[in-house]
Structure formats: C-alpha cells, structure tokens
C-alpha cells in the first residue's frame, strides 16, 4: 500500500444492501493520484458510460487524495463524481470541510456507490465498520435539520447530506457537508437522491502513514510561513472569497443583470466582502487544518431577510443572487444562500436559472401566468425566496427551473436559449470572459462544462499567483486579449487539476509555492515526482476526462462560448472585447493534442499512458 493512502476503498451496492472493501493497485495511484482523477479512471473502467445518470447502475463516487488527513494546510478536500444529471457528461465537484479527512481516518480513500435502496437509507462508516440504516424519518428534512439529527447521538461524526432538492432530483441539487460546505456543481445531489441515499456519516480515529515524516514537517512549516506572508491569504481571511467583488467589478470580472451590463459600482459596493465584514459577519470559520479561515459565519438580526447565525455566502453567491439579478440587498443574498443550503441546491446554477427567468420576465416572454403569480421583476427578492422552495419541491414554475436553465429554455423555445449563459449545459460561474479571455477558453474546455475550479486560470490570468518555475509566464497579463492565453490556460489547467487529484484547496495552491506542495506530496507518498511529473498527471487527468466526454458524445462543436458572452459589453473594463474563440481553440487544440473532431490523438493517449482510453476511442 502506498503511503498517504488508507489503502482501501468501499463499494456500496444499495440495491443489494451490501458494503465491501476493495483495493486499487499502487501503479494506478501513481498515475492518477486520487480525487476526481482516480474517480474518472474507475468510472471508465468499471461502469456503463451510456447509462442514465440517475439510473441505479450509474455510480456515485466520493474520493479523497493522498494529502487528505495529513494535516497539511488546505488538505481537507474531497471530490464527488458521477455522470452529471444536469449536463449528461462527466460531473464532479470538490468540497472542503471535514468529511474527507474523517473518511481517511475511518480507513477508506473513497466510496463507490451503485444501485438504489428500496427505502431511504443512511450509510454509516465508523472505524471501518459499515452499515445501512433506514432513513425514512429523515426524508423530506432539509440539510441543516438532517445534519443536526444525525449528530444528536455523536457530535464527532462528519456527514454528507442531501436536502429536498436532491430527493426530488433537481438537476442542480447539491450535497452538504456539515452545513457550511457544499458539493455544489453538476447536480450530484440528485444522483444521491436517485439512489435514495439521504446521508453518509463517517467517524474514524486512524492515522495516516507518511513516507518521510521529517521532510513532511519541514514542508508543513514552510507552508504555514507562506500563508502568514501571503496578502491573498490575508485578504481571504479578512473578506472571504467575496473580496473579489470590488476588484472584480473594476476589472470587468463581475457579471451584472444576467451578463448584459459591464459595470455597476453601487451594486458591487453593496455586496462586497468589506461590506459583509462590516455588517452581518459574526465570525470566520475554517476547513480542517486550514489557518486561512476564509469561510464566513453571518447573521441577519432582523428585517424581512432575518436569518439564524450560519454559513454565509461566497463571492459566487453574491454574484448569482446579487449582481446577476440586480439585488442590492446583501441581507437578501444571505437569506437566499441559507435557503439554498437548507434545500440543498447549487447557488450558481440556481441563481443563474432565476436570472435567466427574470430576463425573460422583463421581456414579456414569461408573465405572472407562467410563474404561478410571482412577480419576477429584477431584484425582487421576495419572489426569489418564494421561488426557491418551489424549485426544490418541483412545484409549478419551480419544476421548469429545476431542470436547469438550458433545459428550461429549450422548453420555452424561441429566443429563450439566447439568454442562457452556459457551456456544455453548466451555467457560467461569476467571472466574465469578456474581461478575461483566458477564462473564456477555460470555460470552453473544462471537462465539466463552464467551470472556474478545475484549473488555476483565474489565479494566473488575474494575477493572484505567478509560477514561472512551472511554465513560462509574463509578469502581468492583460485580461482583454487572447494573445498568449492558450498556453497560459493549458499550463494553468495542468497545475490546477492537481488541486483536485491531490485533494487540496485551490486557494492554497494559489497561496503556496509549488515547491512546498511538491515537497509535502512527495514526503507523504514517497512518489518522488518532480514538477514535470506532477504536470503530466494534470495533463493525463484532463485528457482522460475529455476522452470520457468524447465517449459520451462531446465533440469540437461543443467547445464554444454562449451567444451572450460573444456579444460585447458597452461599458466596464471588458467593453467592446470578446475572446478570439477561433484563435484560442486552434492554439489550445495543438497543445492538448486534439484532432479536428476534438478527440485526443492516438499518439497523445500513448504519451500519457492512457492505452485503455485509446482502445475505447479508436477500436
């Protein structure tokens, strides 16, 4: 068994009610490391790709990496992977919190779940013992309630929980980890709901074996010092991820009014990280072993959007339930965030679907007759808050939005699709490619659809991080040019992907020196990978997932940006600018070794050691 790993995975067949451990060869771990990379390999090798994402035979995988549980800063992550019920292609979402380290302590590197339970169940793992128990009494309860009930008997357990949205198969349903952390994107809560798996709880006391404890301690010490010295870490601690709101609005990063306006400084000032800190912040919160503590704990004490003290909104949520829908009331964003958390919904895709509906309502394409009487005027938070439970409950107009903005627009027909801002069915996160052309390419080529977290492009293009030791980099990149961006995206993806396979936080990969991460990784695993070896793992991950998507029907014609993004803005830092999609794609395809169909060429698959995938794509 390789160091850094628990050494076994758990297979759960919910139809049969059976749990059994299995192992993965060390050679496979060296090649794919862990997290969603290893998940993709297990998916390709062991499951019917063509199956409906919500069918019993489609797997749901909860995966950790070798650094998880080590105590290294940022190593709290885990990934949930499955074929996405929102996009129909590869789906994955990573999450912080504390579930990942606890799963490792409980003796498992990951869980692979298939089947469908006859009645709702909870999967419990404690010190290697597993059991499935009836969860009929929890079905229908929200994420917070369920979490509290599960922890009543043992406060030390860590839980993954779905809410009503997951139970009702909302296509952007999320999975919550201990209230404050969410597996948000690509609708994986619906996959859990389809399996009638209400929750997973873990409890463990095991200790992780490291290859070289002394070298690990040195790397860990260096990491803590780098965090202490980092302005980015200081900014995240002081303001959370919403520190981006003020700066992003200046730089043309923040979408306004469903991506139709280039800037609104009053809006960003009302919704910014500093404003949150000065108004509703009660304290900060950290994932396991993280000194940055970027999470916000907030409370709205009174008024129409009153909330209990609880997890506060990230920047993305301040975008989707703020700037995107022209809501200037931060308390309203906090209330919407709390409701989405409780119901178990991705705040990005949910907010994007509402922004899309508000645009159609403003244009008269939708009326109160279509919306069950809700006035979806821009910024009407009372209607938004009334709509959220209807989406989770799939009631009336809520059921239309529960299918995701693209599916909803296709049902409406006409020009409704033009207002959906997505790539491969996944709504864009809150970073505008008209302000940052590299992000446009990253959205086009990300393997889960439009994504800001499967790569490190945001960090490098916006200048939060610079890694000339990894690849040739300029001192500064202008956002509104496509020149040199294909190369930047290619390398930044290969490095950023490691965050997912090693399972460490993306912010920490931005903050820490690559040398420190490499040294810690090698001290834990003993793999002895240099930068080239690590970057090759990133490239292998990208190509593996691309190949899976090719087998699921993705081709070059899907590597596009939506019409709205290809329409220049009239104001703001991105005014008049759109990514040069053809140039970016042409240059990127060469770097990735893709053919004109958008398939990895055979020689690229051989170079990366993906012979099984080559067999599947070219047989």
């Amino acid at each position, binding site marked *: 068994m390789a160091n850094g790993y628990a050494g076994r995975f758990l297979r759960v067949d919910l139809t049969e009610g059976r749990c059994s451990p299995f192992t993965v060869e060390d050679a496979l771990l060296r090649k794919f490391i862990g997290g969603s990379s290893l998940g993709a390999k297990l998916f390709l090798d062991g499951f019917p790709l063509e199956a409906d994402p919500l069918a019993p035979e489609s797997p749901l995988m909860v995966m950790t990496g070798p650094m998880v549980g080590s105590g290294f800063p940022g190593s709290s992550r885990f990934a949930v992977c499955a074929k996405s019920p929102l996009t129909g292609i590869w789906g994955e979402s990573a999450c912080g919190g504390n579930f990942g380290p606890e799963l490792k302590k409980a003796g498992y590197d990951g869980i692979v779940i298939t089947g469908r339970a006859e009645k709702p169940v909870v999967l419990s793992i404690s010190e290697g013992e597993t059991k499935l128990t009836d969860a009929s009494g929890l079905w229908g309860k929200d994420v917070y309630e369920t979490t509290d009930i599960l922890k009543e008997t043992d406060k030390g357990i860590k839980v993954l929980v779905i809410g009503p949205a997951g139970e009702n198969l909302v296509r952007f349903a999320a999975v919550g980890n201990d209230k404050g952390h969410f597996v948000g994107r690509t609708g994986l809560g619906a996959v859990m709901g389809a399996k009638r798996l209400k929750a997973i709880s873990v409890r463990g006391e095991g200790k992780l074996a490291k290859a070289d404890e002394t070298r690990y301690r040195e790397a860990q010490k260096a990491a803590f010092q780098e965090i202490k*010295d*980092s*302005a*980015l870490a*200081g*900014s995240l601690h*002081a*303001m959370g991820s919403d*520190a981006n709101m*003020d*700066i992003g609005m*200046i730089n043309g990063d923040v979408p306004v009014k469903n991506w139709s306006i280039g800037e609104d*400084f009053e809006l960003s*000032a009302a919704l*910014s*990280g*500093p404003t949150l*800190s000065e108004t509703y912040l009660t304290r900060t919160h950290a994932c396991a072993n993280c000194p940055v503590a970027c999470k916000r704990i907030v409370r709205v004490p009174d008024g129409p959007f009153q909330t209990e003290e609880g997890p506060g909104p990230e920047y993305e949520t301040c975008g989707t339930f703020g700037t995107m829908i022209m809501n200037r009331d931060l308390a309203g964003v906090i209330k919407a965030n709390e409701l989405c958390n409780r119901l178990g919904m991705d705040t990005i895709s949910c907010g994007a679907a509402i922004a899309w509906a508000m645009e159609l309502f403003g244009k008269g394409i939708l009326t109160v007759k279509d919306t069950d009487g809700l006035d979806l005027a821009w910024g009407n938070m009372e209607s938004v808050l009334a709509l959220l439970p209807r989406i989770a409950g799939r009631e009336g107009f809520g059921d239309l939005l529960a299918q995701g903005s693209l599916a909803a627009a296709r049902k409406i027909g006409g020009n409704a699709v033009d207002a959906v801002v997505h790539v491969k069915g996944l709504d864009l996160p809150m970073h505008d490619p008209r302000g940052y052309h590299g992000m446009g390419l990253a959205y086009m080529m990300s393997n889960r659809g439009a994504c800001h977290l499967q790569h490190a492009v945001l960090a490098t293009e*916006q*200048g*939060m*991080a*610079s890694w000339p030791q990894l690849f040739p980099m300029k*001192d*500064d990149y202008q956002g509104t040019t496509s020149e040199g961006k294909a190369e930047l995206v290619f390398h930044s993806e290969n490095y950023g992907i490691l965050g997912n396979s090693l399972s460490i936080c993306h912010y920490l990969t931005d903050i820490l020196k690559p040398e420190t991460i490499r040294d810690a990784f090698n001290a834990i695993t003993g793999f002895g990978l240099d930068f080239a070896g690590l970057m090759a793992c990133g490239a292998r991950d990208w190509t593996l997932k691309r190949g899976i998507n090719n087998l699921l029907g993705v081709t070059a014609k899907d590597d596009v940006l939506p019409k709205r993004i290809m329409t220049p803005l009239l104001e703001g830092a991105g005014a008049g600018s759109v990514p040069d999609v053809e140039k970016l794609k042409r240059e990127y395809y060469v770097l990735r070794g893709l053919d004109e169909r958008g398939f990895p060429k055979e020689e690229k698959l051989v170079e990366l050691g993906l012979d099984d995938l080559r067999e599947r794509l070219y047989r």
Partner: protein
Amino acid sequence: MAKFNAMTQEWLDAWKEKIATSAEYKEIAKNWEGSVSIIVNPDPEKGIPEPIYVFTDYWHGDVRDFLICDKAKAESANFVMSGDFARWKQVAKKEVDSTKALMQGKLKLKGDLTYVVRNIKTVNKVIDLLCEIETIWPDEV
C-alpha cells in the same frame, strides 16, 4: 513635458500636483482617509544604495504631505507598502498591476487590507496618475 528623477522630492511634488489637480481623483477619493508610505528596498546595482522612504498623505479627495522621509516617519503611516526597486519601477511604468504585485507577494502591505479593497479605485487612480509622470529611473541614466 518635464522629466523628473525617480524617488526625489521633485518627483513627489509632480505626483502630488497631478493628484491635486485631478477632478476624477477628487470624486473617487472622497471617502479616503489616511497616509500611505512606500519603502523601496536597496539595490546598489540599480543605483539604490540605501532604502528610500516616501510618505504620502490623503484626506477626502485632498492631498497633504508628500515627502522623502526617514524610516520612523514611513513606518508611522496608516498603510506601509514595501518592495524591491524593480517591482516599484514595474508598477510606476504600468508593467505590473499593483494589486497583482501585492497578491503575488512582490509588494508587501502593512495596514487594513479590507480598507484598501473597499477603496481600490482610489488606489488605482493614484497609481495611474503616477504613471503619467515622465520619470528618469536611476538604472537607466
């Protein structure tokens, strides 16, 4: 246009004049309160044998002291930014964005980061006006 030697009192006076006469700055900076010092680390090869300390002070759209000063005065400012000469030159020539340099650790900041982010337009405008000055850099003489 007149040219000024970098990091001299004449250069600071020209920068102060630029800011004081900018109506746009006056509007953007109407909420800013507080002094900012710049510390340039020594780099003998680039013509900077000793550290340079600069003190600048801003108050609700107006500018107050702009001085070459000593270490104690510089460290008394509300915000203290420090970095190598090469980095400051890149910022002043608009080759590197100051916020990015800060995030990447190429420049260091002591002071309330939240306040800086809240007023980032003011910070950017002050830098933009600095970039408009024709500057003679010691390593280019």
